[in-house]
């Protein structure tokens, strides 16, 4: 049954050091506000799971909170590389991290298997690909009907899934629209979940086939207007592409990164997110 909580209380009661946490959102609806709260609370030794680590994991990794990262594309989309992730992988700064690398198809299948309560995902993939030589969690399985050899990866079952959604109603039912990514699968695959939303409404006004998470599938809901910034929320505000471009320079330098994080995350609070999307609003 979803509880409505302040973000800091949701994070402190639901995420613990050493947990595996999937912060999902495929370019759209990336739950930045929750990651910043995790950084403020210094929750560390995390195994973080995410198809596209993006800026959100560049920040968590750069702050030294990540022990292991399970992922499939570690770039700054359309801009270049994730410089804090690179520094951790190439130079072990600020600490070494373990990588478990997959393809998008494998990650998506693994979340779906987790949501479906299966132990593994089966797909036609990784054919001729080098990842199966460096990732022991990529194996093959023979179809008992056709004899075809297929790829198998373990289901993803995170301790916690964290997502940002558009809105929730007063019971805690959650609506996701636009690029829906793997958020529904991640929440259903996880033991616990935190969902931040732009607003609480009386009626979701969801069409019959909309992507809705019923209130009894969600652990906590927190209202954080702008909580996906610099990602976006369909119908609320657009993607802050300039921020993604400018991040490349912030992340390129250890000192600049640390002072930026100190000023804009550690010394900030959750309510700055609503200011960060000012001027990016779209007409609903």
């Amino acid at each position, binding site marked *: 049954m979803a509880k409505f909580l302040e973000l800091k209380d949701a994070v402190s009661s639901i995420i613990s050091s050493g947990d595996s946490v999937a912060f999902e959102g*495929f370019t759209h609806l990336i739950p930045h506000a929750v990651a910043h709260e995790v950084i403020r609370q210094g929750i560390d030794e995390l195994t973080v799971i995410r198809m596209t680590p993006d800026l959100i994991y560049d920040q968590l990794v750069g702050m030294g909170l990540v022990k292991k990262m399970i992922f499939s594309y570690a770039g700054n989309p359309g801009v270049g590389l994730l410089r804090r992730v690179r520094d951790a992988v190439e130079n072990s700064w600020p600490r070494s991290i373990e990588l478990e690398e997959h393809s998008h198809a494998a990650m998506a299948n693994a979340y779906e298997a987790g949501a479906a309560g299966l132990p593994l995902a089966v797909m036609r993939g990784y054919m001729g690909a080098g990842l199966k030589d460096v990732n022991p969690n990529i194996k093959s399985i023979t179809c008992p009907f056709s004899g075809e050899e297929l790829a198998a990866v373990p289901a993803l079952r995170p301790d916690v899934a964290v997502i940002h959604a558009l809105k929730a109603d007063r019971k805690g039912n959650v609506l996701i629209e636009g690029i829906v990514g793997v958020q529904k699968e991640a929440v259903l695959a996880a033991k616990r979940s935190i969902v931040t939303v732009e607003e609480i409404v009386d009626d979701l006004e969801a069409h019959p086939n909309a992507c809705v998470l019923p209130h009894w599938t969600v652990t906590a809901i927190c209202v954080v207007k702008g909580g996906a910034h610099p990602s976006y929320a369909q119908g609320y505000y657009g993607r802050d592409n300039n921020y993604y471009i400018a991040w490349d320079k912030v992340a390129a330098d250890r000192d600049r990164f640390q002072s930026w994080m100190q000023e804009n995350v550690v010394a900030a609070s959750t309510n700055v997110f609503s200011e960060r999307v000012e001027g990016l609003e779209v007409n609903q």
Partner: protein
Amino acid sequence: MSTLDFTPDEMMTIAASRALGNDDVCFVGIGAPSAACNVARLTHAPDITLIYESGTIGTAPEALPLSIGDGELCDTALTTVSVPEMFRYWLQGGRISIGFLGAAQLDRFANINTTVIGDYDAPKTRLPGGGGAPEIASSSQEVYITMKQSKRGFVDKIDFFTSFGHGEGGDHRQRIGIKTKGPTLLITDLAIWKPDPETKELTVVSLHPGVTKDDIQATVGWTVKFADKLEETPAPTADELKVLRDLKERTRIAHEGRKVERKGEVA
């Protein structure tokens, strides 16, 4: 038309756009592939189906997206599906005619590396990784690749097999159970390449206007094969150039975004 001024980059995008047809269902990689696919849509292939891995099917963006999941892709799409559905039903299901990829490193058999430079466990440069590409390369009916030529990119031996092209050449794809054609076309800033029908080694079939064989060899880390009947790529037409430049200008304006001063500014 050959008197028009154009850059090698523009020639690359336009040559790539010409390879796409109205009936194609194209899985679009970000960057150069995205530009080429949208120029095709805005010129000779208005009904082409463009699919981005974020789940948007039949998208028609006004400006080029910065990421594979910008809001405009969803706003202009026929439909948007979940990411598991995208990879399972649409890509793995065999519904993509052309997978359009870029690369950091490419070898003579069109194998792609976008994972690491150097050793995987102790890389000199950690690149983003494969994302959707390993399965785009094996499940699309054909693969087109577009990238600029350089000695760093066109290497004798790639450091990591992110996406399988033709392996060691010949029938290597079939031998490991892949049923699709794999890379059938490479469009660069200097030339158009196709794999040899037998050996599958990439062969230059058309030089862009003003480009020499020496220019090609100077940017490639193996001894290049040229087709016996080497053609010259037709220069961009005035119409093609206008469509591309207008698209780039709309993209520039769109990415400029907001100009409001606020807290949390990273710049």
